[in-house]
């Protein structure tokens, strides 16, 4: 089993920065009119609270902090893409780390880890709040429910035989949630990185001699503006993906908290 040092280092650094900021802000919180950083954080927490309140049927004290962490953590991890690609790579290279990939959301481990945590919470609340209903859904949906209610023994037997199929379909359905959640984030950020590389390879020149020619200069200028445009768009994608990850996590947990329909 290997460990990706780049992902671990960057996520730990981002986490340390967020925790450090929280500790710094904690000593400056005022009950009166907020200013500066507190104002910004309050706006963010207000936004997260509103999102959770709009989607959640009951009060659960862990959901809003979870949504806040997902949004802030994913957004900041995505934002590392704004830094010049060679900066962190070359710095890491000085410390002997080869093939440094600065954006941790480009590593499937981080999105999957977060999605698995959310999925585990969904399963926990499903089993805790409506255990019978969830097991019934696992075994009897979508095919067996009606068949088992029949008085005809053949149809009933067919219903029993369909239980493994139901279970398989339901497991696939449930597993699709963390899978789609994590691959969406990973895919978007990875694709963004690939496009950066494509822009760099296709448009940016490789040496000073090429830059001295008209074609090379023109290509460099076009490459700069295309790269800048993509950077801005990629920042927006990073923000959007953070929001999508947060809102889907809240929605999945909200579904787990919905009362069972009879």
């Amino acid at each position, binding site marked *: 089993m290997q460990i990706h040092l780049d992902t671990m280092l960057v996520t730990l650094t981002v986490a340390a920065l*967020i925790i450090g900021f929280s500790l710094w802000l904690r000593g400056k919180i005022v009950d009166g009119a907020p200013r500066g950083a507190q104002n910004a954080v309050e706006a963010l927490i207000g936004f997260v609270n509103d999102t959770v309140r709009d989607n959640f049927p009951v009060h659960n004290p862990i959901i809003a902090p979870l949504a806040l962490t997902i949004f802030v953590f994913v957004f900041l991890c995505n934002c590392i893409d704004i830094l010049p690609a060679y900066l962190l790579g070359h710095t890491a290279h000085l410390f002997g780390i080869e093939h440094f990939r600065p954006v941790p959301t480009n590593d499937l481990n981080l999105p999957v880890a977060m999605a698995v945590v959310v999925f585990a919470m969904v399963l926990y609340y499903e089993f805790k709040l409506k255990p019978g209903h969830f097991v019934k859904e696992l075994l009897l949906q979508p095919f067996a429910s009606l068949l088992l209610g029949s008085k005809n023994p053949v149809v009933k037997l067919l219903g029993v035989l369909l239980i493994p199929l139901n279970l398989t379909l339901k497991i696939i359905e449930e597993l699709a949630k963390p899978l789609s959640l994590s691959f969406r984030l990973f895919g978007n950020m990875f694709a963004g990185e690939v496009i950066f590389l494509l822009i760099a390879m296709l448009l940016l020149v490789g040496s000073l001699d090429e830059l001295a020619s008209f074609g090379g200069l023109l290509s460099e200028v076009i490459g700069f503006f295309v790269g800048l445009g993509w950077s801005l768009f990629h920042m927006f994608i990073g923000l959007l993906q953070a929001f999508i990850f947060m809102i889907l996590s809240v929605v999945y947990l909200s579904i787990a908290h919905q009362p069972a329909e009879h």
Partner: protein
Amino acid sequence: MNIDLTFVGQIIVFVAMVLLLKRLLYAPINDAMEARTKKIEDGLAAASAGEEARLRAEEEAEKRIAEAKHQAQEIVAAAERRAAELQEESTLRARKDAAAIVDAGKAELEAEKNRARQELRAEVAAISMAAAEKILGVELDASRHSALIDEAISKELA
């Protein structure tokens, strides 16, 4: 691009982040926001209560002013009624006094008239007796002839 030990590390980092952010950032900021919201709600409730109290006081004041106006109108009306009564009483009393004065004057006039009549009768009787004495040349006896003279005078004055 496979799942490995990093996955476990990321789960630990993520769960720790959730717990730490809840404790260090979310809870204090949320508490501050809730405290401020409560303070604002209390302030608004107090302002609302003050406004209600002001409206109640205004209503009370208007009610009292209306009552005072009504009382003042009643007092003025009573005073006017009393004034009219006093005027009526004064008029009646004046009329009564005037009638009494007129009656007294009439009585006095009548008394004066009677007294003048008595005096005139006495003088006429004396003059008549003096004239008769001169005409007849004899002295008349007043006690005996006065009845006749009075009867004659009464007939003349009547």
